[in-house]
């Protein structure tokens, strides 16, 4: 995750870069973010946090995050993206029951009586949930008193413009310009 900070407060800029990185890592969102730009203007006050995700947040199915093969009435699942392992297991237990889902190792699962087609349609994480969690993480990394926020979302680009009291049109313009710079729609 590349983080660029633009501001005029040397201590605050450095501290907020670390704060943003720590918060995203703690909430397990750093892996989803390709790059981020933080514009910090505490004198105004105006804060613009803009991030570009590595991939558009879409619905994830079991086959998106694991290798699946069907053989002799059994389906064998090998999870390739570790962060989805609990979601995969939860979804399989819910559909087939614990006695038909056998977890051989941390990433290898055998399912009795499952069909490949069912796993292809089985959603384990919705894009909306991901988006909500990412926005929550951005809000959490912002100063607490900066409560008046507007969010712009275009595909994988999320920009949060925040101020303390009235949101002036020029603040929105500045936020939109950064959103476009990061790859969002004009």
């Amino acid at each position, binding site marked *: 995750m590349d983080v660029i900070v633009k501001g005029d407060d040397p*201590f*605050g800029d450095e501290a907020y870069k670390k*704060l943003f990185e720590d918060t995203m890592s703690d909430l397990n969102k750093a892996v989803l973010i390709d790059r981020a730009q933080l514009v*910090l203007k505490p004198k105004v006050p105006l804060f613009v946090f803009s991030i570009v995700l590595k991939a558009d947040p879409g619905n994830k199915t079991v086959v998106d995050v694991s290798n699946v093969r069907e053989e002799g009435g059994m389906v064998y699942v090998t999870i390739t993206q570790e962060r989805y392992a609990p979601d995969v297991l939860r979804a399989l237990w819910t559909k087939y029951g614990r006695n038909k889902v056998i977890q051989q190792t941390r990433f290898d699962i055998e399912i009795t009586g499952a069909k490949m087609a069912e796993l292809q349609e089985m959603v384990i994480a919705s894009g909306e949930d991901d988006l909500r969690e990412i926005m929550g993480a951005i809000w959490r990394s912002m*100063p607490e*008193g*900066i409560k008046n926020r507007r969010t712009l979302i275009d595909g994988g680009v999320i920009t949060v413009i925040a101020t*303390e*009291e009235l949101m002036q049109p020029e603040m929105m313009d500045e936020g939109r310009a950064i959103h476009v710079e990061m790859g969002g729609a004009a």
Partner: protein
Amino acid sequence: MFEVMMYDGGVYRSDELFEMIEDVGGVVLQKNRSSQMLTVIMSIPGEDREEISKLCKEIGGEVKEVPLAGTEIAVVGPTLGRHHMPHPICDVAEILRRAGAVTVVMGLARGRGKNTSQISAVEKEIIDEYDACVMCLGNFKPCVEKKTDLIKDLHVPVVLVSGPKPEGVEDTYDALVTGVGRKAARMKSADERAKLDEICDTLENVLKDKKLSIEEDPLFVHPAEIKQILQDYEPIDMCLRPSPMVLHLDGLRVKIPYEENREYLENVMVYGRKLGEVAYIEPSRIDDSSVIIRIKTRSQVEYEDSQKQ
């Protein structure tokens, strides 16, 4: 001259320690027991320090210096919002507790924001009940400078802890420690631990001034002596709150309801005088379940006596 020190060890043979403290005429200021571990903060005559240290080591514990013992400190932040956790305030409070202080962590009701932060009169009065206040502010210089409005009317010594160094607001605080702003992780690195020690030392220096001014015009009675007199009073003895009596430099906080116990407290005898005559006894501003006792100085008591004649 009385000295304050802390025993940190097990409960095994701790009765021998309490007996010795009593024998030498010392006072237990604070006692915390957690399972089989025990910490005792005591005030003892200087000449008996060696004997007590020897006994502490003999029974398997160790003796630690506690420069802030006998004080109650408010560690205040503009907000204790969940999204700010873990908060540097917690680390600051912890290091002060290790130095022997009783600490209270406090967030203001409307303290957040640069232009909208406020402190109410009640909040100021609550902070003024403590011996000193450590105010923790954030990372941005303009915000820190603006938020010093929160501390400018406090009457207790204030140590301001912030990220950058604020300018033009030097008259609002007694001491300043910079380099600690908002953080998203515990202060565990060597540099951060050194910064916490610096806060502790700064507060110790600030309180030293207050102690010196008390020494110049001594209190009518030492707060520890009032603690000794009151400790057998049933509501205090039966109080389940942690540290039912907390020492301040100029008095003490007693965690029992004011209305029900006012009469007893005012009439309890101290060196042939009623406590109500030699101390101000008031309900705490937090709620009416605590009482604040502020002991008058000797000169003040003498002056009031002369006025009566």
